[in-house]
Structure formats: structure tokens, C-alpha cells
């Protein structure tokens, strides 16, 4: 599906993203195991370093910049585990992708009257 017309504002998780985000996603997936969650919470930067994340990616993770994590190849299904360790509602992550406030996102995208 690599040669087809891209769909507007819809990044497909293809080889390019998969390669770019490999270390980030691997780090995030590891949070499915409790000892890794403890290590992440105890010293986040050291934990990220142990997966060889570059500075740009580390900054994105440590600032919980979800939009940037996706730009750097993060796949939502993996990086959602960061939001489990450091609770963030998925709607906030969605809003960050859309570049909207959570309130606007809920009204304009999800059709809810209020947050």
C-alpha cells in the first residue's frame, strides 16, 4: 500500500513510521511489564536511555508531547502504555493529535455537548 494516494491528515503506520519509531515503540511496549513501569517511574531518563532513544524522542516522551511522539514514529497502541503509567485520558491524546483543546475536540470531533 506504499504507492497509493495518501489520505489527508491520516498517517498510515507503514515501514517508514515503523522504522523511525522502532526504539520508542519498543520502550513503550516494555511498560506492559510491571518491573519496567517501576523503572520508568523511578528514573524516566535513565529508562529511556536504556532503549537508546535519541534526544528529540526523549524530549517528546518526557514532555508527554503526544503529537511529537507520533511524528517521530510512535504508534498510538504502543505509546498508550505511557499514558497508563502516567495517567492521561486518551481523549487528551486525541486532542493533541488534532491540535485542539480537549473541549473543542470533544465538541467538534466527538460531537459531545460538553466535556
Amino acid at each position, binding site marked *: 500500500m506504499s504507492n497509493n494516494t495518501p489520505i489527508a491528515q491520516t498517517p498510515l503506520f507503514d515501514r517508514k513510521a515503523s522504522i523511525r519509531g522502532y526504539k520508542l515503540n519498543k520502550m513503550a*511496549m516494555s511498560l506492559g511489564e510491571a518491573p519496567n513501569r517501576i523503572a520508568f517511574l523511578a528514573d524516566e531518563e535513565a529508562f529511556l536511555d536504556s532503549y537508546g532513544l535519541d534526544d528529540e524522542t526523549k524530549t517528546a516522551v518526557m514532555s508527554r508531547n503526544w503529537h511529537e511522539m507520533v511524528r517521530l514514529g510512535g504508534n498510538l497502541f504502543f505509546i498508550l502504555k505511557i499514558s497508563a503509567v502516567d495517567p492521561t485520558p486518551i481523549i487528551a491524546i486525541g486532542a493533541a493529535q488534532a491540535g485542539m483543546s480537549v473541549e473543542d475536540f470533544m465538541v467538534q470531533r*466527538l460531537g459531545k455537548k460538553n466535556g
Partner: protein
Amino acid sequence: MAEIIGGIGTSHVPSIGVALDKGLDQTPVWKPFFDGYDYTKEWIAEHKPDVAVVVFNDHGNAMFLDRVPTFTVGVADRYKPADEGWGPRDIPDFIGAEDMSWHFADKLVENHFDPMIAREITVDHGLQVPMELCFGRPKDCWPVTILPIWVNTVQYPIPTPQRCWDMGKILRDAIESFPGDERVVILGTGGLSHQLQGARAGFLNEAADRDWLSTIARDPDKWRSMRREDYVEKFGSEGAELIMWLVMRGAMNSDVTVKHTHYHLPASMTGAGCIVLENT
């Protein structure tokens, strides 16, 4: 010969499981969604399946990007629920329909499918949530054994809708040639419209979702011949998971009776729905 007693299509949104864990299913936000599954649960209680075939995708829990299988068939005797980062959920392990799984694996390979065959693997919300929606949450053990089928919908290339449909045909053959008298229900899961990433995140498409629910029974050809790109465009990048319902639909008769349809928008960020089909 085992028998297919029906097919169910359903969403598998993780927050449905969270709502159940937190006892929120009767709150104003969630009640309308869960009420739509009352009929489904009654249908299950009345028709008493022995085995549930569950078609779903892993969401970065049991499989990583190091090795991405297009299709996986579980042949384990037992599957533990995956810990998706929030800690283990308080639901029983799932017992595998081991013999039927191996029989299906044999049939697939004979018929020129190329599955991965897995026996040490966890099952994530993609399977857990549909099981809870159909069977409730049991105290000690689930009332059915399971035959899990994983479909890659995360890393492109994902399989074509037609390929999912074709797998349904082999699934039907495998069940109907299985030496036993098991009553089998097939759960096609995922969708409906949702998109979690990119500037179009939060995309929902109620019209497309309602079209899907109202035509998947009587006009599946329309959906199985649609391109993967069109699924993404119409249902959102993660809504393309709907291709997995086609395994279930492909395993049913061309003529089916729609026993029940339910639609709720949104569950979390997803168009959520359910359909219950019987062979006519």
C-alpha cells in the same frame, strides 16, 4: 461435525473494559452502550455455544514490530489476559479449544493460507472486551473455550478485505469438518469508525458506520471488494479494523438473518456497534 450457530460483529474498545472494571456500566454515559448488548447476552444464553472463535487484532501487547505476522491462529490450551500497562485485569484465563484450533491450522495450510501458529501468547482487549460483552464477566471460568485468530491491522501492509473473507470460508470448512458436536459462535471484532493518530484524530463517520451495520448482512460483497485505503478513508486509520468482521461474515451463509443491531456514538473515541447474525 461441529456447527456454526451464529456470527456476532462487535467493537472491542478498551475503555469498555475499563468501564466494567470501574463499575461504570450503569452510569448515564455508558448505560445506553451496554444496554445494546442485553439482547446479545440473551441470544448467547439461549443458544449455548461451546466454542467462541474470536477474530481480533493485537494492539502492541502480545506482538511487537520485530516480527509482524499477517494472521495468527492460537493453539494453546490456555491464554492469559494481557497486562496492557494498567496491571492485570480481574478476569479468568481463557481456555483454548486446542483440538479445533489445530484442525483449523491444518485446514488453513492445506488451503494455501500461511498462518503463524501460536501457543504461548496473551490476549488483549481485542478479545477480552468482546468476550465480556457477549458472556458477561464470569466469576471463575468462561462458559466457552476459545479459538483466537489474530489479524495484523497495525503495521502496513495489512491483509486485504477479500483475504479476510476467504479465511472465513476456510474457517467454516474447518468447523464443519471437525469431528465433534461443538456449537460454535464466531465473533468478528473491531471498529467501527475511529482514528487515534494524525491531525484527523477523533474522526468518526456515523453514516458509514450505519451503512456497514445495515448492509454487512445482505450485501457483504460491497465490503469485501473495497480497497484497504477506502476502509481507512471511510472508517479512519484504526476503523480499518472492520475488515476482521469479514472473517465472521465469510464463514456464514450468503443468506443470513439479522437478529439484532446496535449502534452507539461515541464510546470513548469510537463508533461502537454490534450485530447478531444467524444462518438462514
